[in-house]
């Protein structure tokens, strides 16, 4: 049962998914104790932090019945822009870099949101277009050249790696984003309206909520997070180029869906998305350790994702499918 704030019935979806993730972790560790090495875990958490951040942003859009396919391209473009900024103004310090990343990401998100809200183009069409546009722009601003670690300032690179309590700043930022998103959805009017607009746009309209504005807001949030993730990404991998995070949007959406976010809007939460991201991260990191040939890794992870999604969809339909159908008939 997917969960909406405050409504309780049976075990929340997150508990089941959490147990499944722990079981997965245990299974891999029992078979290959090497997996639970500190270094490996650190890299898993760092990888997953980026995935979780982007998935949290994506969740906002999914909640309002949209989809944002441009998150990875947004990250690539913003990452490239801040890398170039850093290369030209190496002494500017970390703050401008982060501000530029967030503002620029939000602006790219606003462009998506504007087209969805005011021009009324379906979000999948809009972001399919901007996905290519944004990635094309990476090439335009960089001229196709890479920005390598040699061109990046030490602070630019070391900021994300700086350990606090043994955990990198990158992971802390991921956690911070998740916590802020959780608080936003749970305690603000806008957060509540986001759920209302996605859950039942019709009733939301009657309640005085501008559904289009909520969709636009979701895109801005998704974009801002993607922009921030763009800086973190190029700093972590110490390189910026056109194909950064290419195709990553699909994993982002998968993490959301595994985490119980409904593709039809209005259902899902940060906790589920975080666990969904961890679940995916463990699979991706475990497969090479387990010794599955790289040729098969993609197929295996795809298979596991599909199973997770089917389980998720199954538990949902059991409670809802028939009822909704009958209701649709009764009201027709």
């Amino acid at each position, binding site marked *: 049962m997917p969960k909406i704030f*405050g409504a309780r019935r049976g075990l929340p979806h997150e508990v089941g998914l959490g147990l499944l993730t722990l079981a997965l972790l245990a299974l891999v560790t029992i078979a290959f104790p090497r997996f639970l090495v500190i270094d490996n875990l650190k890299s898993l958490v760092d990888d997953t932090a980026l995935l979780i951040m982007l998935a949290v942003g994506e969740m906002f859009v999914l909640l309002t019945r949209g989809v944002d396919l441009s998150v990875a391209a947004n990250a690539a473009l913003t990452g490239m822009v801040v890398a170039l900024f850093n290369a030209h103004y190496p002494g500017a310090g970390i703050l401008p870099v982060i501000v530029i990343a967030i503002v620029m990401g939000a602006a790219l998100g606003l462009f998506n949101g504007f087209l969805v809200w005011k021009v009324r183009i379906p979000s999948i069409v809009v972001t399919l277009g901007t996905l290519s546009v944004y990635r094309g722009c990476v090439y335009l601003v960089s001229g196709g050249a890479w920005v390598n670690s040699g061109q990046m300032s030490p602070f630019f690179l070391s900021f994300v790696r700086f350990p606090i309590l043994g955990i990198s700043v990158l992971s802390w930022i991921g956690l911070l984003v998740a916590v802020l998103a959780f608080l936003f959805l749970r305690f603000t009017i806008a957060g509540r309206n986001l759920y209302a607009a996605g859950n039942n746009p019709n*009733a*939301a309209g*009657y309640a*005085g909520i501008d559904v289009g504005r909520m969709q636009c807001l979701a895109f801005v949030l998704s974009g801002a997070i993607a922009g921030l993730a763009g800086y973190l990404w190029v700093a972590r991998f110490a390189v910026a180029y056109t194909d950064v995070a290419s195709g990553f949007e699909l994993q982002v959406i998968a993490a959301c869906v595994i985490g119980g976010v409904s593709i039809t809007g209005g259902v899902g939460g940060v906790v589920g998305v975080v666990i969904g991201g961890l679940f995916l991260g463990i699979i991706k990191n475990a497969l090479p350790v387990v010794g599955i040939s790289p040729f098969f890794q993609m197929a295996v992870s795809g298979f596991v994702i599909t199973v997770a999604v089917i389980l998720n969809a199954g538990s949902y339909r059991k409670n809802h499918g028939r009822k909704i159908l009958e209701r649709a*008939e009764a009201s027709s």
Partner: protein
Amino acid sequence: MSEPILSLAGVTKSFAGVRALVKGEIDLYPGEVTALIGENGAGKSTLVKILTGVHHADGGDIRFNGEPVHIGSADNAGRLGISAIHQEAVVFDDLSVAENIFVTDRPRKRGMVDWATMRERARVILAELDPRIDPRMPMRQLSVAQKHLVQIARALSNEARIVIMDEPTAALSHREVEELFTIVRRLKAEGRAILFISHKFEEIFDVADRFAVFRDGAAVGQGLIRDVSRDQLIAMMVGRSVDQVFPKTVVPIGEELFHVAGLSRGEEFADVSFGLKRGEILGVYGLVGAGRSEVMQAIFGLTRPDHGEINLEGRSLKIRAPEDAIGAGIAYVPEDRQIQGGILRFPIASNIALPSLSHLSHRGFMRRADERALAEDYVTQLQIKTSGVGQRLEELSGGNQQKVVIAKWLATNPRVLIMDEPTKGIDVGAKTAVYRLMGEIVARGLGIIMISSELPEVMGLADRILVMRRGRLRATFTRAEATPESIVKAATDA
């Protein structure tokens, strides 16, 4: 006289505990047109859906040529030769006319669609209906009347023996209706049985041989059209005891609170003017499609009227969005509580608080304790039966869901409450509770505009009754002068 080809006796159907059909009885005879008459919600559509296999009857007896049959699916209905022409032409707009005609049964050759045969057969059928329709035309390009003809063509291609027409004339011009009736007479002459649903008595007396009247989901009369008068039909339609117990609270009616002047919007409605006084319940009666909800949606800012003035307590209102209307003190309990009214998966507290969140928050952050307290207050006031305000709306009964939706709007502190079919689909006990609640609301000095298609409800509760037909106000009755006959006449007369 021949035997009926299709005969229904004691057919029942409920949706989620609400009885839509209590006693569905009707006989259809080959070569005759039977008119099915009843108010909105009398069970006509449910009956049609059972005949066409969309819904399964819960109980009762359906006989086809005297043999008991079970219509389990649309496929079965088709095999029995039952074909329906729907009120809103149900067609595939982006497919061609020929494809629409043969949608269930494409002519095939070696497993592939045989386009040539399909077009040719379509041409032959259409030639007799309207030769101007080209089978290759996309459906989108046809007029509503032509779309009906294509549906008739579909029925003919299926060799339909029973043709159901659900308000086929609702969107047709006078001439188109004449053309349609010519075809209906032809179908009749060919020995097909026709079930004709209409609100227009003129048409019924023109084309029908028999009638069947439904009221509150039950058949209340059947017979030959020539044995009956129009007033007798109306009496059967509305005949239930209008003096049924309505807990009408007597409230002193105050000065004018709200006024609408010259409101018009496109084809939906024109030149609608009315006033509402403090303590008054204003009933708005009309048939489905008369434009009642459209007027209210425009007042509430869901759509923009082309012309017109809206005044509340002497101030002229500029309403661009529901937000403005809510802020000005107008609330709207919409017709469909599950789709428009509430958010089923939200807890009760969140539903009640939704339009009032700005009053329950501080700098954009909600005060969840206040939200809870507000919801609990209304749960007590309105006696909503629930295990707690954290319960999801979908888990409540229809009547309690409706109370939650009403609570949600009362919480916005409105001056004017618009209620669109406030007791639709809820059981009798819950209805009485809603009526009592309405009495309490007007006693506080609010005004209620109640759209209702149930005559006893309008007559039992309203202090004044407006009747709309085809987008215009046609009559106003005070509580004392209203009679069922005069109201129905104003709502149906062409």
